[in-house]
């Protein structure tokens, strides 16, 4: 199923060298507001990442809204991309979305198993939250 936001991301990364890809991730991370210290709790931390990632969510209308942060910019940039796609969607939508852009922009092919695990843990957490929203 094609997804306008994912297609947009794929376009942005098209033809970029790794240096530019990382630059893009870092600059998108910079645009994300820093999460308030009080929410950077153990409970909101995702394990399985070499860097720390914090994700919290709340329902806004019937849509799920996520806030996130990471102490590493490249990680934060990757979460930013994932949530650019999944943020403010209905929980069922989130569960139905196939994140095909990750393969397409060449992030996954460059990820070692440990790093891929980190990314998978982030996506798993987002889906878990969505599942709670559905039930």
């Amino acid at each position, binding site marked *: 199923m094609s997804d306008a936001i994912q297609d947009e991301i794929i376009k942005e990364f098209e033809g970029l060298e790794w*240096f530019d890809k*990382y630059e893009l991730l870092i600059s998108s991370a910079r645009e994300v507001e820093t999460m308030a210290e009080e929410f950077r709790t153990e409970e909101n931390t995702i394990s399985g990442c070499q*860097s720390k990632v914090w994700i919290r969510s709340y329902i806004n209308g019937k849509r799920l809204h996520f806030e996130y942060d990471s*102490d590493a*910019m*490249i*990680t934060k940039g990757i979460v930013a991309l994932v949530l650019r796609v999944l943020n403010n969607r209905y929980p069922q939508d989130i569960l139905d979305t196939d994140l095909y852009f990750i393969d397409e922009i060449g992030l996954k092919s460059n990820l070692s198993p440990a790093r891929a695990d980190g990314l998978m843990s982030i996506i798993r957490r987002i889906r878990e939250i969505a599942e709670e929203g559905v039930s």
Partner: protein
Amino acid sequence: MIDAAKDFPILEKEVYGRRLVYLDSAATTQKPECVIDTIAGFYRSDYSNIHRGVHYLSEVSSERYEKAREKVSEFIGAGNPAEVTFTAGTTDSINQVARSLEPSLRGNEVIVTGVEHHSNIVSWQMAGAILKAIPIDDDCNLLADSLEITDRTKLIAISHASNVLGSVNDIKDIVSIARDHDIPVLVDAAQSIQHMSLDVKDIGCDFLAFSGHKMYASTGVGVLYTSERFSDMMPARGGGGMVDKVTLEKTTYLDPPLRYEAGTPDIAGAISIGAAIDYMQKIGMDKIKEHEHEVYSYARDRLLEMDDVTVYGNTDEMCGAISFNLKGVHHYDAGLIMDKMGIAVRTGHHCAQPLMRTLGVEGTVRASFALYNTKEDVDMLVEGIEKVRMLHS
């Protein structure tokens, strides 16, 4: 300067279209061709189980395995090959001592240092010991004067060189204090054995632990030196190959070293340690030390001249590893960017979380060196740092 890179086939490799600059030798060293050939050659022509066959191959294998033990014994200055046992690595060596001494350690104290790696912390805790750490000053020098030995102190277990900082601890100083109190000392030499000559008799320690894979040999094999003083220590593991007489009522054990080598050991691994020792000795440990010192000092100088780089630790003697951070840059980002330039560094807490807490950081970038690294590798590291900086500006 020595030119050893040519001996290591993997160093010809390109990653992401760039020359591999391998600066993660504190995690594990690459293997020279001669070690790889020895392992392959052993499996091809001499392989069999040891110490139990009457047949030709078993004899040859046993001989090669015991020859490796002799080489290790001479290499570390042990008086007798029986003091050398092959284990699965540094962690396993430490764990075996912890298991063997557990009855005396439980509820008592083991003294470690403030720069320890987790394996020299966790094993003692698992044996029920209470840990006390010799504190470090701002430069990460051990404050040996703060060493407090009490009636409950049963062992001192210290790393020779820090896997994070590259700081070399003055172990002789600590061993001599321990000797006065008749406390045994275990030295974790995982991060020093490949960088300098060691002499256990000169150090005066009772135990010395190190791994094969950090000294150009195989993974999954290591050494535990146990001084004759502890030759009747209870073996940590039981099974075949370590027993004298077995009845259903009672078992008696062989003398060291076989007493401590239950089951089939990593025969090829042990032989690879022998080959690695041959390789290092052919170059010469003094030459290795001199070469590495030059590369290491050059790296420190280059890093120290950068205003936005913090280098951790500054002791009189240093070797192997350098840990640093760039101002405003997460170590993980730095590692990812350098990786894309073909530079293999390590990032994170390096299995030394208490030390990270002392330094007040979550993690560091660690560049670590071996005999095959050159000043050119350091220049590449500096270029990598510049790229990291550029991406964060």
